[in-house]
């Protein structure tokens, strides 16, 4: 395995967070994971402000983004990222329960890199998260300036 990219998970539901982390742990991908519980915190992380003001610079290798979030929702976060010169290259994967066409269209219009519907079935869910983690944090070559760590 080559370098491991940092994954930023934006997820408001603690259970979903736990299940996601479990899935990533199973494949040793959980070390470089940061969780933001709403859109505002996600933007704080990206802009190194608030509770993240002292973090080391650099963008995450991928952002797993839920759509329905308190305060600033997922699409707003996505819009902000894509409209900012420093952030717009970050790969963003929407990870949501919604398979509504409306959400798909809006996400892709805003330039999302992938759209994954969280499967209800646990095995499928774990599988999906694992594949996402492996692909975006390991296989994919992230844009320059992303945070990586040698395994």
């Amino acid at each position, binding site marked *: 395995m080559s370098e491991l990219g940092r994954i930023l998970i934006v997820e408001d539901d603690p*259970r979903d967070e736990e*299940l996601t982390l479990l899935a990533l742990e199973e494949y040793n991908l959980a070390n470089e994971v940061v969780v933001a519980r709403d859109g505002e915190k996600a933007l704080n992380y990206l802009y190194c402000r608030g509770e993240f003001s002292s973090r080391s610079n650099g963008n995450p290798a991928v952002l797993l983004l839920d759509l*329905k979030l308190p305060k600033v929702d997922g699409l707003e976060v996505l819009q902000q990222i894509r409209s900012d010169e420093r952030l717009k290259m970050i790969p963003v994967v929407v990870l949501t*329960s919604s*398979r509504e066409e409306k959400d798909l269209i809006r996400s892709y219009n805003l330039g999302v890199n992938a759209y994954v519907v969280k499967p209800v*079935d646990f095995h499928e869910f774990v599988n999906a998260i694992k594949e996402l983690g492996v692909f975006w944090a390991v296989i994919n070559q992230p844009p320059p300036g992303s945070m990586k760590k040698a395994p």
Partner: protein
Amino acid sequence: MTHLAEGPTRLAPRRGLARLSLDPERGRLPIRYGFSVACVAVAVGAALACRRYGFGDAELPLFDLAIVAAAWYAGIGPSVLAVALSTACFDYFFAEPIYSFEVSREELPNFLVFTAFAAITALFVGALRGPISNSSLWTRHQASSPEQAPAGRHGLLRFLPIATVLFAGATFVADTATPLDIEFATLYTVVILMAARFCSPREITLVAVGCLALTILSFYLTPQGGPAFVGILNTAIGLIAMGLVTLLAVQQKNAEASLREHSSEIRKLNEELGKRARELETSNNELESFAYSVSHDLRAPLRHVDGYSELLKKQASSSLDEKSRRYIQTILESSKRMGTLIDDLLAFSRIGRAETKKTLVSLDQLVKEVVAEMREDTSGRDIVWKIDPLPVCCGDRSMLRLVIVNLLSNAVKFTRMRAQAEIEIGYVDRENEVEVFVRDNGAGFDMQYVNKLFGVFQRLHLPEQFAGTGIGLATVRRIIHRHGGEVRAEGGVDRGATFYFSLPRARGAAERKNTQ
């Protein structure tokens, strides 16, 4: 004769003249002013001819006519020119002393009345006509909505009824109290005509009756000069013209009123329709947000039930007894089933909300596609497919595909226990529609429960016998209903089933175009 010429012609701005093709809208300035000069010239000629042949007193109505024509066809500027020219010509040719621009003391009031009348005529005809860029009154009238009709009373026009009464009074006074000879009947006719545009039928009638009374009164009061028959003839013709104008004006008003009534009724219905549409839109939006909420919020807890049960199973499986393991297994299966139900329900609701994109669809090709796919999935089974040639229909291809997929997969599913399954697809030609059927030799159903077949989550078989949530036929029905067709089924227990759906026939080049 002068009156005869006047009466009907004065009506003209309302209907007839408007259709003549002088087309002032595009006429250039010299043409419009030239038309105005020509009108006055013709009026002078006709009036001189009348005087020459002993009919006298024709100048006033003829000049009026010239001014009306200029105002109507050439616009405000030319009508002012016509007024000026008419006044000058009247002064020169007809006011004592004639052939001079001087005005005698006796003739002065008559001259002033004429000038005032000419100006008023030009003003109101101009107002009636509206901006010269408008099309003819006829089309304007046709197009005018009830909102516009009362708007006619705005500005100067609001004072028209008062002006007409004052003017009629002034004419009467001038005609009877002075030795002047004003064409009162003609003037009244014009007054009524103008009132007709802006007053209610009752007001028109009142004005007409008043004018009539004044006419008769002045006939008795005016000292008669010249041959008596000329005065009587003039008055008689004037009365006839007035009667005619009144009749037409009232009729027109009534027609307008009934038109307005109809328009207001239509408007009311339209408003109602708009309200309904808004209500429908609101409820549709609510439904959409409901479905969205189901899609997003219901799945999450379900995923947690499933996920944590899985984790529990993994964590504690070894320390649990058989019964507890079965309980966990049941929780897992139930959550999976609920997941399927939610997905099915959402797909079903999407069909109701999605827009149908209608094109010409070859059912033949569609069925062949679907059957080819199914053959791959059922390679281990002996299924005899009998596919008749099918027609072209008008509909949403992806939705109709869903119909075919649902019906054919049902047929495949319910013939599972047959050594050799037979599935037939064909159609019956009806007058305006085609009825397609899918027939199988499978488990069939009891006709007693045929009404339940197409309901959401309605099943006539136990889940152990045949898998499924019971959404397939409900989807079929919803799609076919959205296409304006009907569904029905025939069958018998263990004797197979036939499902029919009808679709409107595709015909006409217009529809054909849509497929491009």
